[in-house]
């Protein structure tokens, strides 16, 4: 029997029970539309996360000292290598792919201004810190290289700190005391909001790193070195130059691992992307459960159809239909159901996704992959769930089928 003839008779058979065929298809329609919409939402989320991360500045590298545990286990605390001021200066001097370098260290403490006080993080940075972080001062000014060299007792307040210590007046020109050391406030930073991890980036006081090293923590090593590459394309070059330089400076043997770690924002981007990908897969898997239920609906209706049409099967067999002719006929019917459902589902999924974009202001992205996937899925479901009823029909005994009432 020719495929075209089988297709025609399948369409005719499905048209005979319009309502039933439609309801059966509805399962597949909902499943496919849900898969398309969920993939669109997931991929939209992925895209917007990537966008936000690249807005943070994707040419930033952060050099961390090697983990204490690793060094401690190998060589003991006395020989532990960490980052020094000289390392930072060497990076700025000798790495051509590096634009700005800001040595970083940190201290915590209670900050007192008049009769108010506030516990916050104290960030020691170089004069180029704001260039690297793409951040600006709202009032006042940032400290200069001279201030850094002199370990000047000046500070810049984050917006949150400024609001808490100086609720009424302008903080610029006022004094605050950090761990009983008096500092002069020379500026207030722009509001930056929360970072990707949900921390308030404005709850901070920035002071020259030299001041932290010499007047606050008395700990001679840096916690990190913040570096910006000359361009995003030069990140890899900057990273390898820094690695080479630091290995040399720290006298790391050729067969030993680095005693420092360089992290860049693209690692962070990759992590975030992986997270949203998991989200996408999760959403799509939940949606495909409904596709599966739709497939079971097809199997159910095809089983009913085979029972109802037992006599027809008997007649067809008596005039010479072979088992495989009957099998093909019912398989094609199941396939037509699932395929039509799939196509309608794709249309509804695409329309629905753009509706979500418009009304919920959530970015959605529909890829050819997701359309292809849903289409392939609905074909597979038609074959998989249509096979059992079709085989049941094909294996009927002609006489029993003819006599079936």
């Amino acid at each position, binding site marked *: *029997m020719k495929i075209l*003839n089988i297709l025609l008779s399948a369409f005719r058979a499905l048209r*005979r029970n319009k309502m039933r065929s439609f309801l059966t298809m509805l399962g597949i329609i909902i499943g496919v539309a849900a898969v398309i919409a969920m993939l669109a939402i997931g991929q939209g989320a992925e895209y917007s996360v990537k966008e936000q991360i690249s807005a943070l500045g994707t040419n930033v590298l952060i050099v961390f000292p090697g983990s204490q545990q690793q060094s401690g286990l190998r060589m003991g605390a006395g020989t532990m290598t960490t980052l020094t001021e000289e390392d930072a200066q060497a990076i700025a001097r000798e790495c051509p792919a590096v634009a700005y370098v800001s040595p970083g260290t940190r201290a915590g403490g209670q900050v007192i201004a008049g009769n108010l006080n506030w516990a916050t993080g104290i960030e020691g940075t170089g004069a180029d810190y704001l260039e690297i972080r793409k951040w600006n001062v709202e009032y006042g000014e940032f400290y200069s290289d001279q201030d850094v060299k002199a370990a000047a007792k000046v500070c810049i307040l984050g917006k949150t700190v400024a609001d808490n210590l100086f609720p009424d007046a302008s903080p610029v020109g006022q004094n605050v005391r950090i761990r009983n050391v008096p500092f002069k406030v020379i500026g207030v930073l722009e509001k930056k909001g929360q970072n990707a991890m949900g921390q308030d980036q404005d709850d901070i006081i920035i002071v020259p790193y030299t001041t932290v090293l010499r007047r606050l923590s008395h700990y001679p090593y840096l916690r990190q070195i913040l570096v910006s590459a000359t361009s995003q394309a030069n990140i890899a070059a900057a990273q390898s130059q820094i690695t080479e330089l630091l290995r040399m400076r720290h006298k790391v043997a050729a067969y030993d691992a680095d005693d420092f770690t360089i992290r860049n924002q693209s690692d962070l981007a990759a992590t975030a992307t992986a997270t949203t990908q998991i989200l996408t897969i999760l959403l799509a898997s939940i949606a495909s459960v409904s596709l599966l239920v739709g497939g079971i609906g097809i199997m159910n209706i095809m089983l009913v159809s085979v029972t109802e049409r037992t*006599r*027809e099967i*008997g*007649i*067809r*067999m*008596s*005039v*010479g*239909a*072979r*088992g*495989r*002719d009957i099998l093909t006929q019912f398989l094609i019917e199941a396939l037509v159901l699932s395929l039509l459902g799939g196509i309608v589902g794709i249309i509804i999924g695409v329309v629905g996704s753009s509706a979500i974009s418009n009304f919920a202001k959530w970015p959605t992205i529909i890829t050819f992959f997701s359309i292809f996937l849903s289409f392939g899925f609905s074909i597979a479901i038609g074959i998989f769930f249509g096979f059992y009823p079709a085989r049941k029909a094909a294996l009927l005994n*002609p*006489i029993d089928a*003819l006599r079936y009432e």
Partner: protein
Amino acid sequence: MTGRETIPGSGSENGTLIRIDHITKTYLLGEVEVHALRGVSLQVTQGEFLAIMGASGSGKSTFMNILGCLDVPTKGQYLLEDIDVGKLSRDELAQIRNREIGFVFQGFNLLSRTSALENVELPLLYCAMSNKTRKEKAIEALERVGLADRMHHFPNQLSGGQQQRVAIARALVNDPSIILADEPTGNLDSRTSVEVMGIFQELNNHGITVLLVTHEPDIAQFAKRHLVFRDGKVRADRANSTPRLASEILKELPEIDEEEEA
């Protein structure tokens, strides 16, 4: 009438079409064995018109199913045109039903909501043939039973006699060597029955072998040979030297249909 020019095996001794040798058929109904056929032997020559009679439960339907390759015997041999049917696979049996045998049933067994023409085309769907040839052959078969003008009607728009004629057209569309008719007049009034028997006689005159199962002696009188079944065995096998001629009886019968329709 385009009878089969070449029939495989038709060259065998004295044109024997069917040779049945001691076949038995035993069903298992739960634990109980039912012996539907207890050793039946039969030879049918090409061009015969055979009526198989017997009460219900005599095994004649089982015998018919075996003849029609819808069922296989438990024991014994069935040679159809020298082919041992018992050794064929399901698919090969289907092919025999498609090419060699045309069925006519008591309940017509037409596909509902399918036009007369498409019903007649059905057997041709299962052999390689262009859509055009298939339609031509189907129309030709409908012409032979005098229903070409009703080819686009659905079964529920046709009378019983017309439905049975569609079924006969379907049976002969693939130029079979045998037509098997299982109580073909069981659901028809007497005049329509005679009409249908007329068609069978006409086909038989053109060389097609007709095997007819019936329990009505009147109807059996149209056949040239009578076979009587009882308790799974052939009890009588006699020639009917003076078969009734449907064409002549029809002339004498009043034209009831026309009067009622008018």
